[in-house]
C-alpha cells in the first residue's frame, strides 16, 4: 500500500474524484498553477486543465459564493480557503446561503460543495494562521463539519465530502500535513512514512461522515478529541500511564453520539480536548451531550482541556497550545478524584 503524507492523501482524494466525475472542480487562492501554499493541489491543473483547477481572486466570499452558484448549476466544487483564519469573509455565504439553499427552496436547489481549509497552530503562525474555528460552523444548521487527523481518514473523508449532497466544511490541521504531532515541539518532527495511518489505499474508498474512530482503546478515562489533539492525547496517555480511551471524533456534525456514550459508560470519566478556545467551544457541546446521556455513569465531572480564551499568540504559542503536560496533569487529577 502506498505511503502518503496528509497533503498527498488530500491531493489523491481530489485526483480520484476529478477522474471519476467531470463535475468536480477545484479552485482557491494559489491552488492552480502553483498548486497551493501547502501543495495540496500540486499537479492537478496540469492533469485536469485550467477549466477544472484554477486560481481564484483573493476574495473568500467570492470563492464560496461562486461555488454555491456552480453547485446550483450541477457541479461539485471543492474549494480551498488558504487558512481557516481567512474564512470569515465567506461566513455570510456559508451561513445564510450554502447552509440554507435546500431548506428554503424545498430542495429545488442544493449546495453540494466542499470547503477545505487548513486550521490549528503549531507552526508559529500567530493569530492569523493558527485558529480553530470549527465551533462557528457546528452552530449552523445545514452544514457538516469534518476535521481529520491522518492521511487515511483525510482521503476517505474528503471523497465522502465531495460526494455529499450537502455542504461540508473540511478542516485540515496543518501541523499534521507532514506527520503526526504530539505537542512535543522541541523534539524532532515525525513523518507519516513510519505511521500505520500513512498507509493510504490507491483509488476510491470512503470514510463515512458522522462516524468516530477509537484511536486508542482504554478503560480509565475517555478522551473526546479530534485533529492534532489526538496525538497529544496519545502522548499524555503514554507519559502518565493512565489507560485512556482516545476517541477521534473526525466528524463534529453529524456527531457520533453512540461512540461517545459507549466509551464514557465504560470508563466513567470523560475529558474533552481541543485546541480551540474554551468558552462556547465545541467542547461545551460535548460536555453537555455527555452530561445528558451519561450522567449516572460519571465518577468525576467532565474535564475540558483547551486553548485559552485569548487570540492565538505568537511568541507564547507553546504556552497557549494544550500540550501533553497540560493534558497529563488533567488526566492525573481526574483519576485522583474519587
Amino acid at each position, binding site marked *: 500500500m502506498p505511503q502518503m503524507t496528509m497533503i498527498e492523501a488530500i491531493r489523491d482524494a481530489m485526483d480520484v474524484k476529478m477522474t471519476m466525475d467531470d463535475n468536480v472542480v477545484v479552485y482557491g487562492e494559489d491552488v492552480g498553477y502553483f498548486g497551493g501554499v501547502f501543495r495540496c493541489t500540486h499537479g492537478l491543473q496540469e492533469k485536469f486543465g485550467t477549466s477544472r483547477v484554477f486560481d481564484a*481572486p483573493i476574495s473568500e466570499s*467570492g470563492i464560496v459564493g461562486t461555488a454555491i*452558484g456552480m453547485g446550483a448549476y450541477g457541479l461539485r466544487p471543492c474549494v480551498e480557503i488558504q487558512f481557516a483564519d481567512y474564512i470569515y469573509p465567506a461566513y455570510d455565504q456559508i451561513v445564510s*446561503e450554502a447552509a440554507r439553499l435546500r431548506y428554503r427552496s*424545498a*430542495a429545488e436547489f442544493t449546495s453540494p460543495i466542499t470547503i477545505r481549509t487548513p486550521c490549528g497552530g503549531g507552526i508559529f503562525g500567530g493569530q492569523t494562521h493558527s485558529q480553530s474555528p470549527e465551533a462557528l460552523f457546528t452552530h449552523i444548521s445545514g452544514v457538516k463539519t469534518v476535521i481529520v487527523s491522518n492521511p487515511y481518514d483525510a482521503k476517505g473523508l474528503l471523497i465522502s465530502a465531495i460526494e455529499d449532497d450537502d455542504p461540508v466544511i473540511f478542516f485540515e490541521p496543518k501541523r499534521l500535513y507532514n506527520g503526526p504531532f504530539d505537542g512535543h515541539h522541541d523534539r524532532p518532527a515525525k513523518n507519516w512514512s513510519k505511521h500505520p495511518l500513512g498507509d493510504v489505499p490507491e483509488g476510491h474508498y470512503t470514510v463515512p461522515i458522522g462516524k468516530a474512530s477509537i484511536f486508542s482503546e482504554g478503560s480509565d478515562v475517555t478522551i473526546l478529541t479530534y485533529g492534532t489533539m489526538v496525538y497529544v492525547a496519545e502522548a499524555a496517555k503514554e507519559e502518565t500511564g493512565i489507560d485512556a480511551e482516545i476517541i477521534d471524533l473526525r466528524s463534529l*456534525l453529524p456527531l457520533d453520539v453512540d461512540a461517545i456514550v459507549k466509551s464514557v459508560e465504560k470508563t466513567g470519566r470523560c475529558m474533552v480536548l481541543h485546541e480551540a478556545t474554551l468558552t462556547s467551544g465545541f467542547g461545551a457541546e460535548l460536555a453537555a451531550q455527555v452530561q445528558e446521556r451519561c450522567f449516572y455513569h460519571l465518577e468525576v465531572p467532565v474535564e475540558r482541556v483547551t486553548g485559552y480564551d485569548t487570540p492565538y499568540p505568537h511568541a507564547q504559542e507553546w504556552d497557549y497550545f494544550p500540550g501533553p503536560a497540560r493534558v497529563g496533569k488533567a488526566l492525573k487529577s481526574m483519576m485522583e478524584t474519587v
Partner: protein
Amino acid sequence: MSDYAPLKFFVPEPTGRPGDEPDFTDIEIPAAGTVRRPDIDVDPAEMKDLARTMIRVMNTNGDAVGPWADDIPDDILMQGLKSMVRTRAFDDRMMTLQRQGKTSFYMKCTGEEAIAIGFQAALSKGDMHFPTYRQQGILLSQDYPIVDLVCQILSNAKDPLKGRQLPILYSARDYGFFTVSGNLGTQFLQAVGWAMASAIKGDTKVASAWIGDGSTAENDFHAALVNASVYKPPVVLNVVNNQWAISSFRGMAGGNNATFAERAHGYDIPALRVDGNDYLAVYAASRWAIERARRGHGATLIEWVTYRVAPHSTSDDPSKYRPKEASEAWPLGDPILRLKNHMVNRGIWSEERHKQAETEYDDEIRLATKEAESYGTMGSGSSPREMFECVFKDMPRHLREQRQKMGV
C-alpha cells in the same frame, strides 16, 4: 500653529424630505433615441460613455426612435404590457391580503415592472435568474401558477416552500428563478458562479444577476464584479437603481454623483445605463447584453434607472423620509402607461382593451387568491414536521431526536 481648519464630517442628503417639493433636477435625462448602440463584441473601453448617459427609446409621443429601437414583434409587446398589468394587479391584491392579516409580509414592485418583465422576455429557456425580492415580474410574465404564488405568500398547506421561507422569497427552478435569499447582495455573486459553471461545462446558458442600488455597497457586489472580470462568464449584472433602499437614498450607496454603471469600468466590464421605465429600451438593452454573454464576450453591467413608487415593504412608510408626491413627479413616468401609449400609437392596443386586461387580471388573481385562501392563511395548514425536513438531504440523528422530543 496649524493652518488646517477642523475637518467636517459629511453625510449626504437627498434633494427632498417630507414637506419638500420633489426635486429630480439632479437626474439628467437625454432625449429618446440619442444614445449610440455599439456592436455586442466591442471592447469595454470603447463604450464608456454609455455608463453616464441613459438609453431611451420611447419619445414623449410614444414613438420608438433611435438605434436601440428594435423591430419588436407585436406579440412580445402585447405579452410585456399584459404581464406588467398582471403584476400590478397581483401586487395590489397581495397588499390587501397583508392588510387583512392573511399574510405577514409583502413587497410591491410598482413602477419597476418593465425591468424584470422586459429582461425575462429577452432570456431563453435554461437560463437562470438570481433575483432579489422585487423581481416577481419574472414569474408573473411566465405561466407559473398564480395559486402557488399566493400559497407561498400565505405560508399555507400548499405552500411550495412548506412554510419554511418568508413570503415572496420564492423558488422556481423550472422557471429559471433561483431561490431568493433575502440577504442582500449574496446572490449577485452566486449568479457569477452559475455562469462560470456554464462556461466550464461548455454550455451556452446565461445567468442574470440582480441587485438594488443600496446593496451595491455590499462586499459581494464587488466580489461579483471582480470574478466576472477575471473569468468573463456569461452573466448580466443587473443593478436596479430605484433611488431608495428603505429610507436611504442612492447617495448612501455612493451613487449620488457617480452612476452605478460606471463602477463596472474599473473591472474592465462594459456597462449600459438604461431608462428602466421604458419597456422598449429594457428589452433592447437586455437582448444586447444577453447576446454578448451568450456569444462568449463576458459580463455586462446594466444600471436600470427607475423609481420605487411603493413603500419598501408592508412594514415601511415612505412619508416619513421622502417628499409625498415624489412618485408622481418622477420624470421617467409610469412604465405601463408609456408602453400602453406606444402600442395605442402603433394601432395594436386601445384604452378599451387595456381596461379589459385590467379587469381580466383582477378577476384571475381574485379567483386564485380565493382558492389559495381555502388552503389556509398566515401559516395555518403548515405542518411542524416540515420544520425539520430539508435541513440536510438525510435527516441526521440530532434532528430526528429533536423532532421526536417535540412530538411531531
